[in-house]
């Protein structure tokens, strides 16, 4: 489904070059839930953003459903239709109602009629548990509700893969649960997901595979059981000791 081959992302600063992602290779199967963990600045978010072209990587290949992002002829907008993304800061469109947030891209990109798009949107709002907020503006919603709307917005495009970039990091602790529940439900339905998170509980419970990244490299890969009970690498052990 998704195949990353030796992906490198360089950031050029004043006379220095940072290798934010440094030769990452991995594969994600259809229906698999992969959780990426690691300390801040380890390049996990940058790697995730490379997968839907928000960052243009410097070297390597990312192949989604047989389409290579490194190929200049690839229409990135076509790829993005199939790759949904949920952000740490929700990034809802504040000047549009919840319903409009969900219907806009459906109508502009998928060219759906207003009626079809709204039906889809209302069904998804039902699914994430806030059908009554359809006509509200995002600023009237709590953080957890906003993030659930953001998930519904991405799902409205019927993507094949969902990327989550620290979806619960900006939330009040009491709202984390409601967002994780929606994500668990999605995983249960067989959605292919790549999740960057600090929620170790979620990783342990939902992940099929855990990637541990540090300094732009994948340090260790494994099932949650392996990962949380008997990590191999010293760096992993150190990290887990800090966060658990």
């Amino acid at each position, binding site marked *: 489904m998704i195949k990353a081959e030796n992906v490198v992302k360089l950031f050029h600063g004043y006379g220095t070059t940072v290798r934010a992602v440094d030769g990452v290779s991995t594969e994600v199967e259809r229906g698999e839930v992969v959780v990426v963990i690691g300390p801040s600045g380890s390049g996990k978010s940058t790697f995730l953003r490379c997968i839907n072209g*928000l960052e243009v990587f410097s070297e390597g290949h990312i192949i989604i459903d047989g389409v290579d992002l490194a190929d200049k002829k690839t229409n990135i*907008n076509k790829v*993005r239709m199939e790759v949904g*993304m949920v952000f740490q800061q929700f990034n809802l469109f*504040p*000047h*549009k109602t919840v319903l409009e947030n969900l219907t*806009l891209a459906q109508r502009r*990109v998928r060219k759906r009629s207003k009626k079809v798009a709204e039906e889809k949107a209302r069904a998804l709002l039902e699914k994430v548990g806030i059908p009554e907020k359809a006509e509200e503006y995002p600023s009237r919603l709590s953080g957890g509700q906003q993030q659930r709307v953001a998930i519904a917005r991405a799902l409205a495009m019927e993507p094949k893969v969902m990327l989550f970039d620290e979806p619960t990091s900006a939330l009040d602790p009491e709202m984390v649960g409601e967002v994780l529940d929606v994500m668990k439900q999605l995983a249960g339905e067989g959605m292919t997901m790549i999740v960057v998170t600090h929620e170790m509980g979620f990783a342990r419970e939902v992940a099929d595979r855990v990637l541990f990244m540090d300094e732009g490299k994948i340090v260790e890969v494994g099932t949650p059981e392996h990962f949380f009970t008997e990590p191999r690498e010293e760096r992993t052990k150190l990290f887990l000791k800090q966060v658990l």
Partner: protein
Amino acid sequence: MNATEKIWPWKILLAVILIFMAAGTWGAVKQIDYQWRWYRVPQYFFYLAEDAQKIPFDGIVTKVEKAGKTTTVTLTSESSEIVTVEVETEELRVSEGEELFEDDTVGFSSEWRLGPLMKGLWTTLWLSAIASVFALILGLVAGLAKVSKNYTLRGLAMIYVECIRGTPLLVQIFIAYFFLGTVFDLSRNVCGIGALALFAGAYVAEIVRAGIQAIPPGQTEAARSLGMTMPQTMMDIILPQAFKKILPPLSGQFISLIKDSSLVSVIAITDLTKSGREIITSTFATFEVWLVVAAMYLLVTSLLSQVVFYMERRLAVSD
């Protein structure tokens, strides 16, 4: 601020200061013995024009019908051509059966007309309105070019903005009229509007750029991650939000444009300022006319501020 602090002493102080300033000005004017002639000003807003109604041929007055204040006079020529003229009953100069020669006066009719101040105001308004529309288009294009990824577009926009903002508007108007106007054979109105639009456009471009850059990058990322193209993202996501943010500085710029339009009077466009100057040459009521002209500008700009204030509140629903 202290919660119990009273505001009325400060109101009184404000009133006292204003009264002192007014009294000071009044006293100073007294010193130079200026003859105020306010009664001469109203006629420059509206005036009653008297037009002599004349017979267009040699002929006879065949009928005079008086109906209250107006009288309808029917005139018949030697070749049986019939013309009717309306005049004021009090100003009727002919009677039935009278023989007249071509261009004899039948009577007078009067009509309220707009005086030079109103005509000048109208010129200022439409001139500014057209210039504003062009400035907005120009500013939007240049502002988008400034945030574009393309080096050439960015360069062009930057040169435009720097050249316009680095030179005085008065000089630009002279260049537009005496240089460009001569070379390309443009009318003074085109030159005036063009100079104003180019000038305001440069400032609008900077406002638009700042507005776009004030929208968090996450908005673009979210829209793009849904598969929307860059133009779609701009139209649906960035510009509507940016517009709300830039409305106050943008309206300030357009209010500025109305005031700046007074400079086009130097290329003999009869706007409000030029009308004022013309009235002064015939009345010598310098003080009155300039005060009235200033008040008229103030009225227009404050009305506009009110409209913008109303729009801002309307747009604030999603906050």
